[in-house]
């Protein structure tokens, strides 16, 4: 094999996969279609979510996965994607697989799929700690234990780890038509096929890093498919939409994206160093890249876990009166104090937050302006308590304070704020925070990642290993 031609497609399920772009990609005879379908960006709540299809919803998911599988079937090529957006937990992976099951049934496709779970068994992880394995945090943040503890593991509802390329390679070796993983390192998905076929790790990793967000590496940068051709010491990359092109600038600058460092990127087993990378425009739309280095490091995977801190209810209140805008800090402090005084001791511990959009809600302490400078503002109140009922009760009381608390110069004795919508209190369900964001050393990159080969379409019972025995079908999960 002289080269690997790789067709990239998002597998997040946003509903924006373009069949037109995929079709153009198929004409170039790709060896494999690859996409990422997990992310921690949307925040901690999804990893805790009991919904089968959170975040993107089942309709978007089914549409996009249908196009990726259609490409694989029509192009007779293997597919590799992570699934269960955004968390990659077993429940959400099961959601992806029940959609795949339905798609294969509806379209008459028969697909043998290697399924690799990214969810970590809590007892296994505790045993690692008891063996003396040290699991340091990956960010110096007060909410994270400096080193992972058993109590962290107990407090987390679900724990996942970002697998490297090795479990995916192992799945590809099982003679499958494709691989669907849970939580995985995005670049690992794109590296797996080239590594299986003996290509250089640095070239594969740099190619993967470049195309993992699709045409965000192109100009203009936008969500769309890209195509990469990987050879022994370099790779070429170009977008599949004719109205976009890759330029040296667009590709080199993508090294910045969502990364803390522009020259070094830590991956399982090493870091990619792109400081000596060279970029060359080989035609109007294609850039050739070479020169990155792979520096071996002890093998670690990132583990992620979320803790439920209670149930959240929110309410919004519009402020238009210049007198209130002038005294907004005093007013907010009054509302906060009165709500605390009323409820502290009445119920269990609760958290209360008031943000003023129009002042410093978005930037917090980094906001250069210290007061409201526009003519209106919005107060967002958020209460987290042990139960939804208590959170909503506190929020309702707080809303009353927003409407009727006094402030200097107040004339609005019939109500201080504009409450949008009815009902004005919005229960948002369980609230989560990140509790585990740590680096777990592994002697064997495969060890914590369970794998099964499943022939689709299948009986739903064949997916129950991901759901604690519960049956998943047609968008529903049995209790």
């Amino acid at each position, binding site marked *: 094999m002289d080269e690997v031609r790789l067709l990239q497609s998002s597998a997040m399920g946003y509903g924006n996969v373009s069949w037109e772009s995929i079709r153009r990609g198929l004409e170039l005879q790709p060896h494999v279609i690859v996409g990422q379908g997990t992310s*921690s960006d949307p925040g901690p709540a999804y990893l805790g979510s009991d919904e089968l299809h959170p975040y993107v919803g089942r309709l978007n998911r089914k549409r996009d996965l249908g196009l990726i599988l259609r490409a694989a079937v029509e192009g007779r090529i293997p597919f590799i994607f992570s699934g269960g957006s955004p968390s990659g937990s077993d429940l959400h992976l099961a959601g992806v697989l029940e959609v795949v099951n339905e798609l294969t049934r509806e379209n008459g496709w028969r697909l043998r799929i290697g399924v690799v779970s990214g969810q970590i068994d809590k007892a296994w992880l505790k045993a690692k700690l008891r063996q003396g394995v040290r699991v340091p945090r990956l960010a110096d943040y007060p909410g994270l234990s400096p080193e992972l503890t058993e109590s962290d593991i107990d407090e987390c509802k679900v724990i996942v780890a970002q697998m490297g390329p090795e479990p995916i390679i192992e799945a590809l070796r099982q003679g499958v038509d494709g691989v669907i993983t849970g939580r995985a390192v995005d670049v690992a998905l794109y590296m797996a096929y080239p590594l299986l076929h003996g290509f250089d790790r640095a070239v594969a990793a740099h190619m993967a890093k470049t195309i993992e967000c699709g045409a965000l590496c192109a100009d203009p940068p936008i969500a769309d498919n890209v195509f990469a051709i990987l050879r022994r010491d370099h790779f070429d990359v170009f977008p599949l939409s004719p109205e976009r092109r890759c330029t040296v600038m667009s590709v080199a600058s993508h090294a*910045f994206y*969502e990364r*803390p460092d522009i*020259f070094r990127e830590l991956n399982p087993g090493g870091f990619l160093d792109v400081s000596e990378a060279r*970029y060359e425009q080989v035609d109007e739309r294609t850039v050739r890249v070479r020169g990155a280095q792979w520096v071996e490091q002890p093998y670690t995977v990132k583990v992620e876990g979320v803790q439920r801190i209670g149930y959240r209810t929110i309410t919004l209140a519009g402020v238009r009166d210049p007198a209130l805008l002038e005294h907004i800090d005093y007013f907010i402090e009054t509302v906060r104090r009165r709500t605390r005084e009323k409820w502290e001791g009445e119920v269990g511990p609760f*958290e209360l937050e008031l943000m003023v*959009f129009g002042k410093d809600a978005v930037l917090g302490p*980094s906001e250069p302006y210290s007061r409201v400078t526009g003519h209106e503002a919005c107060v967002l109140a958020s209460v987290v308590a042990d139960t939804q009922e208590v959170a909503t009760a506190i929020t309702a009381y707080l809303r009353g304070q927003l409407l009727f608390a006094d402030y200097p110069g107040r004339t609005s004795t019939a109500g201080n704020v504009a409450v949008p919508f009815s009902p004005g209190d919005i229960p948002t369900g369980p609230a989560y*925070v990140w509790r585990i964001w740590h680096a777990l050393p592994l002697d064997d990159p495969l060890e914590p990642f369970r794998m099964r080969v499943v022939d689709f379409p299948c009986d739903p019972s064949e997916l129950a290993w991901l759901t604690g025995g519960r049956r998943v079908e047609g968008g529903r999960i049995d209790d």
Partner: protein
Amino acid sequence: MTRRIRLAEGARIFRSKNAGPFRTTVDIFYTSRDSYLALKNSGALTRKAVADRLRVPAEAVEGIFFSDETLGIKITFAKHPRMASGDMRCADTFGAQQYVALKDWEIEVDDG
């Protein structure tokens, strides 16, 4: 001759995003090499200066990178306590608006 310019002057891209839930990374790409080099060579973009601008401790500013090839500057810093993605005080889950704290920052540059 010295003059003061905004960090956003001559930038074609000025954006931010989470680099994980606990840190924000700001990317700035300039159109002209002159503006980029003037800012880079000003020596004003230090961890201390960025920290003062963001009102965070100096150790919260984890990295400032200059890329001559792309005319790019990257600044990575820890999020405020209680403002990590998903926290009680989080109003920007993706970190997508945090760059604005730096956009109007006036930097003294030497036009030589």
